[in-house]
């Protein structure tokens, strides 16, 4: 018989809770069933595919993605979280504007069915933000992308377009890399 916990968190900049929740609730269920944030996808449910990746912002350790299917509210209690619903910006009218990563995925036709996309967006977003704080040499970009996207499974597109989109964002955004772009321009 699971106990209960008193849960609060910041989710996409909004204070959530206090909520009285089963202490063994997994985050994906909180998002979908309690908060109506249905953009986070549940697929394998056992931490293998990363479709459900959400972002946890830690002011000290930086941001990271965690699989919402196997990460419990017990661990996320009190933390600052972003889900796919919190990635796009807003224009003056309050309409959503895709983030650079989201726009690049659209431009590159990176996804087909899109089931995996929220996870890819979050992983790429964390990578771009990390490079904003700590730029890396241009020649290390490909490895960094591979490492960031590697845990994510996509059954439709074969990954190349996701990969190219993220590479585009990183190389065309000033301040994310050190060195010249020319070196990295050679075909992947």
């Amino acid at each position: 018989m699971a106990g209960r916990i008193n849960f609060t968190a910041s989710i996409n900049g909004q204070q959530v809770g206090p909520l009285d929740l089963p202490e063994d609730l997994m985050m994906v269920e909180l998002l979908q069933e309690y908060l109506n944030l249905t953009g986070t996808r549940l697929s394998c449910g056992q931490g293998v595919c990363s479709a459900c990746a959400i972002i946890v912002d830690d002011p000290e350790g930086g941001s990271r993605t965690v699989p919402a299917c196997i990460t419990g509210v017990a661990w996320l209690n009190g933390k600052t979280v972003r889900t796919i619903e919190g990635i796009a910006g807003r224009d003056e009218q309050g309409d959503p504007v895709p983030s650079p990563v989201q726009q690049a995925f659209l431009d590159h036709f990176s996804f087909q069915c899109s089931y995996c996309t929220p996870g890819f967006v979050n992983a790429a977003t964390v990578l771009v933000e990390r490079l904003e704080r700590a730029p890396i040499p241009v020649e290390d970009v490909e490895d960094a992308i591979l490492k960031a996207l590697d845990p994510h499974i996509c059954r439709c597109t074969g990954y190349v377009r996701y990969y190219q989109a993220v590479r585009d964002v990183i190389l065309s955004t000033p301040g994310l890399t050190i060195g010249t772009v020319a070196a990295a321009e050679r075909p992947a």
Partner: protein
Amino acid sequence: MIRLLRILGLLVLIAVVAVGVLFWIGRDRGATPAASVDLANLGPDQRQQMLERGRWVARAADCAACHTDPDGGSDLAGGLPMVTPMGSVYGTNITPSTEHGIGDYSADDLYRAVAQGVAPDGRNLYPAMPYPSYHRITRADSDALWLWLMQQRPVDKPNRPDDLMFPFNIRPAIAVWNALFRPEAEPFDPQGLENPQGEYLVDVLGHCGECHTPRNLAYALTDDHLAGEVIEGAYAPDLRPDALARRGWSGEDLVAFLHRGLSPQGVMTFRMFPVLSHSTSHLSEDDLSAIADYLADGTQLPGPQQRPPGGATAMDGHALYLGLCAGCHGDNGQGQPHSSVPLDTNTTAMYRDPLNLIRIIAEGIPERDLAQGERMQAMPAFGGMLSDQQMAELVNYLRERWGGRPGDVTTGAVTSVLERNESH
């Protein structure tokens, strides 16, 4: 003053003589039994039988565990580092390459290397080569192994020189070590033994004690046979009957563990995983049962025990468990078949030394094809998500809830384990 010098001189002289005598004794490799058959004149059936036996010996003795090529391509071409407190030694090329391997070894040479730790040129092998265990190999098995090894594909890969620190890099000094610690080479004699097959597999070919038996300061095996030892950064657990019973093993579970790499008590990890793929998964059920019986030594092994949680578990550890572990291992540690091991019967939290538990949580385990179709998905590394204090809380929670151990692991102990193992 002069008197003092004289005494000192005398002591030095005695020491030099003693070392000299030990060196002399250790240089003596002992008698080499005659070949079991006339290897130059084997009939086709006999040859075939010997080759099969040789392959069995190579597997049971797990030659590949150390002699495999980490770059792939050959199980025998060498290059795998073995990290010891004295530095690293590298598995050698034991393919029949004449330039880099053992292509010009005679069957006598192989016996001397395997059972006595002496190469054909008289060079002493480091006891990383487990000749203190192999010393009882039968000459017939050594000959079958020789025949089989000479049939394998030669790989012309040079051996990597060892990086041992002074004075361990002085090879002749091993002769002194041999005089003190190398058992006499006495071929295994099944006569009068209760379970000769089990004893031969565990103590001789399987050389289980090389990891599981505590070593003394001279790095020699002590008499606490199979009592558990920390080796290469992981704890190789106590395999004595009482310890196996306490940790809830049954004979059947031991067989399953060695056969498939998985049982309710856990999954093969660290240096035991390659043992599964190179060795134990290839052994017959009879062999594995003999091993299990020999380890049990007449003690009734009860199997997994339902034990009440060891006292009130700390709330912090409980929240960490539910938040990070329960998604796969279940609220009650029940696990999920083929993806995450049960924790309620797992033995890792039952060891007094929390080393393995801390390292597994911190480093995770890669996804693995075990054996006989059994597999496990990857366990993520949580090192970056937990402070050392949280790690201690989680480890203590697991120890108390399922390990039957006190929650006495301090944050400092976690820090030192993690620092020590950064390089692994």
